[in-house]
């Protein structure tokens, strides 16, 4: 059975792009367009992995991540955080902060190379 991936991002274009990439690799895709909806779907859709945007107006990715990881029922769902930090100066800073401040399983900069995204997801799913 195809693995199900939940994409949470307030930008519909990005959701579509990521969906297209994942669907091309045979994944089943569910989409949520905000933090609150994402949290809800994480519980109702029981995805195998969540691709989670950080900056969302209603509830940001850190909070969604924290809430899911605090719940024993959903703690095991791997979360791949999507950040929008591109400046080289900030990249290393972010890797540090991300590692320290969130319990996300991995993170990737937005925009992401399709190959890179797929590789990261495969790694997380095989753990």
């Amino acid at each position, binding site marked *: 059975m195809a693995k199900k991936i939940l994409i949470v991002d307030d930008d519909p274009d990005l959701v579509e*792009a990521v969906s297209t990439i994942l669907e091309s690799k045979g994944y089943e895709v569910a989409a949520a367009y905000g933090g609150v909806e994402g949290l809800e779907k994480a519980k109702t859709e029981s995805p195998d992995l969540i691709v989670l945007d950080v900056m969302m107006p209603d509830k940001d990715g850190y909070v969604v991540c924290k809430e899911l990881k605090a719940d024993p029922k959903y703690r095991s769902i791997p979360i791949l955080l999507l950040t929008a930090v591109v*400046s*080289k100066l900030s990249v290393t800073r972010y890797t540090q902060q991300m590692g320290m401040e969130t319990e996300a399983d991995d993170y990737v900069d937005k925009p992401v190379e399709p190959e890179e995204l797929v590789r990261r997801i495969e790694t997380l799913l095989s753990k």
Partner: protein
Amino acid sequence: MGEVGKILVIDDEAVIRDGCRRILGKEGCEVITAANGEEGVKAIQKDPQEIEVVLLDLKMPGMSGMDVLEHALALEPSLPIVVITGYATVDSAVEAMKKGAYDFIPKPFTPDQLRLVVNRALEKRKLEREAERLKAQAARSLKDVATEKSKVRTIINCMADGVLVTDREGKVVLTNPAAGRMLGIRADTCLEKPLYEAVGDEKLIEAVQGVLKPENPEVATISQELQIGDSLIRAHTAAVKSEDGEVLGTVTVLEDMTYLLELDRMKGEFIAMVSHELRSPVSAIEQNISLILEGLAGEVTEKQRHLLSRAKERSRGLLELIGDLLEMSKIDAGMALQRKEPLQVEEIVEKVMELMEAEAQAKGVALQFKITSPLPPVLGDRDNLEGVFTNLVGNAIKYTPSGGEVKVEMSPEGDYVKTVVSDTGIGIPKEDLPRIFDKFYRVKSEKTRGIVGTGLGLSIVKSIVEAHLGSISVESEEGKGTSFCVLLPRQT
């Protein structure tokens, strides 16, 4: 007589006029004469200040001496007029004196009598002039003082900064409306009161006491921030000293910082807004381009691939620019160096080298890292220094063709830790070297055309290094390579 004075003689008798001219002329006086009243008045009218003394015959045909007297005094009230009375009657002399004549001399008179009476009149004129001058001067300086006082008062009252002055006992002697507003006090109720009664803030009271009775006489000014209600006030308290160093009182200048905090908050919000609203669409554009390039939206021709690749590079450049601008604004706002700690720079550089390894390998550039001897710790901001070396090493890789080498060497140098990042890249033309640390400056040439950059990187690097009290310099030879040298002061 000594001094030259103009004396007007009004008499219808030529003998008197000539006599006066002769006698007074010898004394150095300039004598002018008039043969009748009308002529005399005209002479006075011409310039009343010019004439020191008037000798006036009372009995003349035409206009009488009394009329001339009235006219003359109307023109110049302090003009001494000596009347010459031909028939020596006390009555007419007394009448003239009543009307304001200064003195009289009976006809006939001797030269000595004339000299005596004219001298006295001249003296009187001189004293009166002096008195008038002093009076005017006093009036003027009184006015100056009043003007100065009111000017200073107006300046103080109009100032946006608060001013609070105390005497040496710590009693409030002056406040302005801004101080009242910031401290929540009223000028009229706190004057002459001790500071602790007038002002509630303990830190301020302490500062005033501190400069009034300094434990260390070197301490002349105390600057601090006061939290009063919702406002943040910066207060500078200084002693007012006399010429011989005695403390006479204190002046506190208060600056309302609340609006700055507000500005800072707004700036933070703006940055957050920009980072989301500006980055997101560009990210989406790039994400979609990647998708198409990957063939996930159908077959892509070679030409399309080329064009899309360029488009993607440009959008990547735009994203980097947005990122750098945000970084810049943080540094400008002084946020860059909030977390200074003792650290080993070589650990940071090593980590950066590890992170850059993949990029270098992909490009076929060799990375080398060397530390010559143990390095002292540096007081710095870890994240920012990481940024500095990520930028320098990243640049070196970016501008070095495949097969080249990027070398990082670290060594202690006096009170500094020296880090040299050198490459065997395309180099920087001599004429561009002085400007490479400028914001938005990029070397434009055939060789750099294919390399995407924002032109902000090195200016950020320089700001960070300088915020650490360090320095950065560059040497380069076109076609051979570039080397950047960063000096960071050791922790003291």
